[in-house]
């Protein structure tokens, strides 16, 4: 198990092995050329723009930055974005694991179609997902009209944001766990069963620990995506100030008021919080993997 929780969608290949013929490495042409293009492009498209973002909130000094952040509206938007994103990623942990399990362990008609459909939230533009979910969960929608008599409101409440983020985050967990589950050593499981473990005991005490790094990595990716998600959320959220106004929307509102420093402050704190959470999750994952390896010896 060599997965690592980087803030990337795909797992970063760990411990970059230099090509085997390291003596010959510089035999190949194009080093300066390709590195030059790469560095120039990354600087122009990623680094300089991010520098502009990092520099902007300080127009009115540290105080201006802090003033922007302690505003009640900003605080409640950040709280909403991070808490609902965490809740959605948490639910997806269980559902994603169940779907990955079914896809790797069982054979049934339509399985390949089901496997392909898992990626739909990656492929479907967020605005499409947004209006489709709104149409389903609005009080007169297919699902909304079933829930309204029960007193459950989904669209235009935080619950609607939750549903949208569950939709968006599902593939991250399934695709992180699926390959690990597919390669899980059958003999270890059989050994546990032979020694008298019930199927549920085997699942919880033998398989689950092996999956933990992949689960954490999927959770991180799903959370990072959900915190910044905009298109699939704004239609179903209703965007009521202090109630269903997410942080990315607040950035846009501040921009429309020409409050560049305010918009940049919210953006910068969002990025810092996301990176903080990702680093902590990454450390937990490393700690678990190293402990697991220690126990195996």
């Amino acid at each position, binding site marked *: 198990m060599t997965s690592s929780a980087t*803030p990337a*969608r*795909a797992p970063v*290949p760990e411990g970059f*092995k230099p*090509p085997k*013929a*390291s003596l*010959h*490495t*510089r*035999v190949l*042409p*194009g*080093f300066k050329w390709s590195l030059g293009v*790469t*560095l120039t492009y*990354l600087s122009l498209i*990623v680094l*300089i*723009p991010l520098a502009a973002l990092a520099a902007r909130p300080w127009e009115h000094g540290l105080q201006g930055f802090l003033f922007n952040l302690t505003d009640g509206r900003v605080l409640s938007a950040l709280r909403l974005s991070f808490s609902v994103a965490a809740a959605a990623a948490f639910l997806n942990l269980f559902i994603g694991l*169940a*779907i990955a399990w*079914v*896809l*790797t*362990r*069982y054979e*049934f008609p*339509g399985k390949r179609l*089901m496997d*392909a459909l898992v990626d739909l939230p990656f*492929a*479907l*533009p*967020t*605005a*499409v997902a947004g*209006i*489709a*979910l709104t*149409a*389903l969960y609005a009080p007169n*929608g297919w699902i909304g009209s079933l829930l309204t008599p029960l007193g459950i409101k989904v669209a235009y409440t935080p619950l609607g944001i939750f549903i949208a983020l569950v*939709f968006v985050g599902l593939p991250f967990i399934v695709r992180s766990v699926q390959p690990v589950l597919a390669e899980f*050593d*059958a003999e270890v*499981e059989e050994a546990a069963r032979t020694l008298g473990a019930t199927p549920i005991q085997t699942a919880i005490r033998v398989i689950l620990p092996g999956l933990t790094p992949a689960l954490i990595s999927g959770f991180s990716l799903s959370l*990072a995506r959900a915190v*910044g998600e*905009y*298109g699939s959320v704004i239609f179903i959220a209703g965007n009521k100030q202090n109630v269903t106004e997410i942080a*990315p929307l607040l*950035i846009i509102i501040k*921009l429309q008021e020409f409050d*560049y420093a305010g*918009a*940049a402050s919210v*953006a910068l704190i969002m990025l810092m919080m*996301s990176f903080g959470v990702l680093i902590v999750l990454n450390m937990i994952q490393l700690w678990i993997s190293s402990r697991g390896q220690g126990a195996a010896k």
Partner: protein
Amino acid sequence: MSARAPTLPKTAGAIGLTATAILWLGLIIVLPLVVVIFEAVKEGPSPYLAALAQPDTISAIQLTLLVAAIAVPLNAIFGLAAAWCITRFEFKGKGILLTILDLPFTISPVISGLVWILLFGANGWFGGWLRENDIKIVFALPGLVLATVLVTLPFVARELIPLMIDQGTDEEVAAVTLGARGWDVFFRITLPNIKWALLYGVLLCTARAMGEFGAVSVVSGHIRGLTNTLPLQIEILHYQYESVAAFACASILTGLALITLVLKTLLEWRFAGELAAHRRH
């Protein structure tokens, strides 16, 4: 190490779990697809076609294609250059380079749009200079392209890097030793080896470029017929309560998403050995 062969779900627990997973996917993922198509054609075919024939919608489709036609080749060339230097040479700072390469996946799309306003907007770093020289970047095509390029930057590179690490450099080094020149090595050896992974990356990049909403929304200015891409047109129509028209536009993007999924799945089955390991099925 031997993996377990999948079997028919036999026990009650297994059948229950399978049924739950299918139901959940149906409810959360398939139902939104169905509702898009249903809402688009619920008043019959002629309102649907009329909605698509609106001049604003047609210019939105053209703009979406144009933005993708500029952004995707840029990111494909960048992806090839980045994968070449990262997988073919050893140098200091490679880890940092990879981290920067992945940043666009972590940044909110809204922030990926915001940064261009901070650079080129009226109050941005270069705002005054651009105004003096009468150059428009934000609220115009260049801004839409820049925002799309930033959001989709890693897609091609991320498909190529793991595959090119797997493949190693033996063939290329042999060619150079036998006297092949730079571009010959690339076009005759590297490119044939990575062509399916390149196509896979371009496919994902294109799908995202055409569907991008948040980043483009920030830099567009929503000028109808001028800077509205198809996803932005959906938003405008939705808020004008033109439901059929909004879902008609959405149905085009849904069709694109389904085509993307089919092509992606075909590539995964047919050319599994020539894609990065985590893409193989």
